[in-house]
């Protein structure tokens, strides 16, 4: 399992690298006329490409972040390995649900 998690975290990082750059660039671009819900929705609603972009973003974060959290808890806490795995899984679920909900809300 450790090898699978190692590979999953590295591969998700490779995917997240360009996505984060585009996301940051988009933030700079999006606020040029002030930031409003209407302006965001006008750009994203009905856009398949943005839904794919942020859908992939959410999936990558769902894989990447909980593995990192698991590593941190293993090193810095005295929580049992089983509990750490459950906490990491819960965080994965939270990221997935909140992320996909946010994506569904804007497209």
């Amino acid at each position: 399992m450790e090898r699978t998690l190692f590979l999953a975290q590295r591969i998700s990082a490779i995917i997240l690298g360009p996505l984060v750059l585009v996301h940051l660039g988009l933030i700079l671009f999006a606020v040029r006329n002030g930031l409003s819900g209407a302006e965001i929705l006008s750009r994203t609603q009905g856009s398949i490409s943005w839904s794919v972009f942020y859908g992939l973003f959410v999936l990558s974060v769902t894989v990447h972040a909980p593995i990192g959290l698991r590593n941190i808890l293993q090193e810095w806490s005295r929580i049992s390995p089983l509990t750490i795995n459950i906490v990491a899984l819960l965080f994965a679920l939270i990221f997935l649900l909140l992320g996909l909900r946010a994506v569904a809300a804007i497209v």
Partner: protein
Amino acid sequence: MNKIKRETQELTVRVWRGKEDGKLVTYQVMSRENQTILDIITEIQRFQEPGLAYRFACRVGVCGSCAMTVNGRPRWTCRTHVKKVSHEGVLTIEPLRNLPRIKDLVCDLAPFIDTWQRAGAPFSGTKTRNDAPALVDPESSTRRAAEAGLQCINCAVCYSACDVVSWNRNYIGPAGLNRAWTLINDIRHSDRKQTFDQAFGDGGCGSCHSHGNCTRHCPIELNPSESIAGLKRVAFKGLPKDV
């Protein structure tokens, strides 16, 4: 004149006495030319503190027995000259970090030795004594990779220097993983895949943060960081081919 002056100077040596709940005890030792840390400890034990416990064997940097923490850094004491590490004539000598303390400067090395087993380190050959010796091309990439990590003397300096070991006692550590890397590159080893699976198992090479403390402190200048990076590459690219 200069030599005479130096011999009249004294070193202030603070030595750890006791187990985990021990304390540093200060001794005064004459400063001499070409004095190693092991010389200092021996002088204290012979002439001032007969009960002082410490380990050594070869005294020439081969056996890996005499590693201790000197002024905060793990070092092989038989090859560490006082003038290289003392700060204004003061030395602080403690047992290695990350290992259970037995008495004074002696640690229990069992957890460190166990990591070698956990890293899949035992060699198992494919041939019997009736077969001809395996032909290993010294110029092949696998042999050169193995050669780079073979000379480890098991001193536990890297294990003591590693912050990841201090955070996660389940981590195999640099020496065990370095050993696994040499076996994975040994074409005579019968189960390189098994060794890799163990080296990448629970507490395996995936836990390494690539700080490089192991490489920085290795007294014989091996590069366990590079060996661990090699193991990580195997996760992506598969076992190294004999080229």
